[in-house]
């Protein structure tokens, strides 16, 4: 339903290329992107365990101190999201649940990184037969999307009626 939250290019753009010192912010994110590409290749080869292993170094390593907190959170949450999705595909919803919760523990910003983690945690709840918890997580993700839509409508030219929930 919801794919990768944001490509790493967006994160790089958010950091600003001119501000990215060699070996600094940009390199940490570029390294993470490379690990994700390896995960893509493993997934294409139906190697779920290999894909998950390729993502582990991202969450186990230390992000450089000068990486902006939001960029760090985005990279890590996107990685936890992918790990949780792989866990689900591997038939291990309890592991997926733990990964999603680690990701959500990094911060609850109103963005698609958090929405994706809520969706994957909802799917883990569903697989574990906790329907109410699943519906609650899906609804929380829906609300984030609704607020982002309201924000997009406000910022785009025109004067359309705002989506419910987000616009003042």
């Amino acid at each position, binding site marked *: 339903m919801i794919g990768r939250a944001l490509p790493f290019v967006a994160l790089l753009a958010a950091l600003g290329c001119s501000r990215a010192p060699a070996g600094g912010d940009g390199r940490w994110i570029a390294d993470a992107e490379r690990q994700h590409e390896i995960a893509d290749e493993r997934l294409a080869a139906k190697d779920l365990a290999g894909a998950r292993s390729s993502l582990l170094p991202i969450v186990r390593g230390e992000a450089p101190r000068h990486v902006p907190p939001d960029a760090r959170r985005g990279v890590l949450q996107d990685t936890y999201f992918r790990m949780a999705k792989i866990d689900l595909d591997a038939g291990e919803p309890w592991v997926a649940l733990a990964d999603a919760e680690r990701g959500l523990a990094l911060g609850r910003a109103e963005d698609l990184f958090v929405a994706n983690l809520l969706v994957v945690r*909802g799917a883990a709840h569903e697989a574990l037969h906790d329907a109410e918890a699943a*519906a609650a997580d899906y609804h929380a993700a829906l609300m984030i999307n609704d607020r982002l839509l309201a924000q997009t409508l406000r910022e785009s030219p*025109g004067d359309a009626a705002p989506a419910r929930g987000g616009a003042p």
Partner: protein
Amino acid sequence: MTGRRLAWLLLAFPITALAGCATAHGPREGSGPAGASSTDDQEAARAYEQLLSAHADLHRAQAQAQPQASPADCARIGQLRDNICALAGRICEIADRQPSGSTAAEHCADGKARCKTAIDAARTRGCPTKNVVPDRSPSR
């Protein structure tokens, strides 16, 4: 936006009021002088037609004046709308399997309403439409 909504309210009231008057003052046998009543009715009917016509003109003008979103904005608007509607559909599937009055049923109703609003918002901006309204609702 507020101005436009206000305009609609201002227009809606007299139309409703006039429609009510038209019903109340419709041709009735034996209700006063036939000539005077008929003239009043005709004038009221003409005024009502003019008001309806002005209302339609305003509606057309507003539709033409509505700024359209850029392709980039539409891509994001469409993606968010689809996310909202897909999640609403998923919640409603869960709610269907729950006892009546469940929290999931409340989330389903709310999600469906937000999905419809998102579809309307995207359509108003001229973004490509997609039939993604969840047709499921809690049956119990």
